[in-house]
């Protein structure tokens, strides 16, 4: 029963990891930018949701659409106004430095506005659960997993079935060719960034229901996203889902078998091992250029 419980918890956490990483993966796949402020955007989503829930009492899951909208706007402006500028003026490496700087600015702002204390979002159904056999199924966690999977599915549908999704994929494959076909590449990059920020925000909202959070967590969420992408591959929701679920299982398995202090160390170990042994990721499309 303990094993089943561990696997179940791992899947819930994994769904969250997958959702938090999918935007990071999209930006890396389409723009080639490593967005070190991704975790900070996740935290922004969590705090926005907390703020909405705290002031209006709106259900955190219902707060997801407005949070996504706000962060889409933020991401669009952030890319078009700043990151594109850095890429144009120097290099991709420089753009990574810019995102590092922005991550610190955002973290500092969150501490100033919301204080460095831990916050958590507890809707009315927070402590209800089902018990099947010896396994406890927490309703909040189940709804979190459901929301994560639904959002990932929606993103996959947008990328594969809609016009803007096709344009994004075309730009990722061949920027020049896409532009020759009349695609406004800069706009597409900014939209991609906006979509990524929106999904980071949604994952922040769900994260807030499942775990307590504080501003310095952002570094962990950025690293998690990196590990997920290394495991699952770049640029696709299905890769993020595979990587995220694996990471969730590894994480809960490590806390269960080795100790609650070690999941992050284990994740990092896996990150380095993967980069060394198989930099292209399990599915074979990540980080071919790592060395």
């Amino acid at each position, binding site marked *: 029963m303990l094993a089943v419980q561990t696997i179940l918890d791992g899947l819930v956490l994994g769904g969250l990891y997958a959702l938090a990483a999918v935007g990071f993966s999209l930006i890396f796949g389409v723009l080639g930018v*490593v967005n*070190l402020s991704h975790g900070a955007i996740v935290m922004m989503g969590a705090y926005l949701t907390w703020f909405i829930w705290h002031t209006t009492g709106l259900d955190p899951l219902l707060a997801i659409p407005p949070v996504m909208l706000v962060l889409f706007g933020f991401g669009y402006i952030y890319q078009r106004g*700043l990151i594109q*500028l*850095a890429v144009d*003026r*120097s*290099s*991709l*490496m*420089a*753009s*990574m*430095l*810019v995102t*590092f*700087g*922005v*991550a*610190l*600015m955002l*973290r*500092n*702002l969150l*501490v*100033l506005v919301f204080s460095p204390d831990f916050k958590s979002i507890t809707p009315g159904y927070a402590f209800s659960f089902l018990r099947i056999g010896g396994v406890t199924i927490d309703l909040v966690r189940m709804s979190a997993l459901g929301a994560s999977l639904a959002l990932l599915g929606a993103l996959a549908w947008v990328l594969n079935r809609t016009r803007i999704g096709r344009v994004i994929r075309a730009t990722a494959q061949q920027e020049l060719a896409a532009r020759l076909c009349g695609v406004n590449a800069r706009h597409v990059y900014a939209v991609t960034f906006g979509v990524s920020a929106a999904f980071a925000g949604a994952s922040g909202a769900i994260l807030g229901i499942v775990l307590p959070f504080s501003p310095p967590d952002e*570094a*962990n969420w950025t*690293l998690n996203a*990196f590990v997920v992408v290394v495991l699952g591959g770049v640029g696709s929701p299905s890769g993020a889902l595979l990587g995220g679920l694996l990471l969730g299982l590894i994480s809960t398995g490590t806390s269960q078998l080795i100790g609650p*202090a*070690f999941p*992050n*160390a284990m994740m*990092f170990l896996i*990150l*380095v091992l993967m*980069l*060394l042994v198989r*930099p292209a990721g399990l599915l074979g499309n990540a*980080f071919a250029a*790592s*060395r």
Partner: protein
Amino acid sequence: MIAEALVRQRWWIALAVLGIAVLAAVPFVLMPFHVRVGQLILLSTALGLAWTLLGGFAGYWSFGHTAFIGLGAFAAGLFETTVLGAAFMRANPLTGLGIGLLFAMAVCAVAAALVAWPILRLRGIYFAVAMLGIAQVLSELTNSIDAFRGSLGLVFPRIAAFGLRQEAVFYYLLLIATAAILAIAFLVKNARIGQGLAAMREDEDTARMLGVPTERYKISVFVLSATLTGALGVIYAHSLGYITTGSVYRTDFSLNMIVYNLLGGIGTLIGPMIGAVIMVLLTQVVLGSFLNLHMFLTGAMLVALVVAAPRGIVGTWQAWRRRRHGA
């Protein structure tokens, strides 16, 4: 090659020696608060130089060098409290610091040598993120494993030697460390390894093809950079008197090392020094009253720098001079 460089750059060397001599007089002239600012400037300069050994010369930008500040600080602290003991440390604090320093440098060297081979196979952003991960994990392990006392904290005894006040003692320790690191960086830059590293930074595959032992060079310079950073961490921890995980494993240290180099000019010796002096004066003296905004301001500074002057002060100045001579 070094002999040539010594002759060619004799004026710069004379200037550096003169500068160190002038700086040595500072604690006798200035107020204790200004001596503390001086400490911070020296620490920052030395950190910038230690980072540049790897980031500037070899082109391997570490985003997590604070890993070695923390590792050094905790290695020395744990050695001093558990092996040497509190009584010994109170009786001869300076000897204790020396022994702790040597031990911590050895720990940093070994740790760096262990991770060097796997991690230096990664390039560019992958190396940067891997270092970020190392710093994160070390800080978390220090915090959560009770034996390392990361959350409980470590206490260092006060040091007042040779009739000097505490802040003057640390000022001189940092001055010696800075001078030593500057000398080491000068030697590395002008020796055969420095030429090899410069070739590697421009194009690693070509350098390797032309017979530069890239693997050996980058591992040695990584270990050297880590050891020197660790030594600075030890001195910094002693000057604080009491450390927890959060006071030595600081992301803003990692960030600042990059900012100093970026502001001054990457790949030079004078660059990180100029950058460190400007940044410390700016953040500590000019913006001293906005302590809770420090991280925000360093982040903003980094963003502004990358966008406005990606080659730093030295690079911009060189370009300006070239343009004038060329025209």
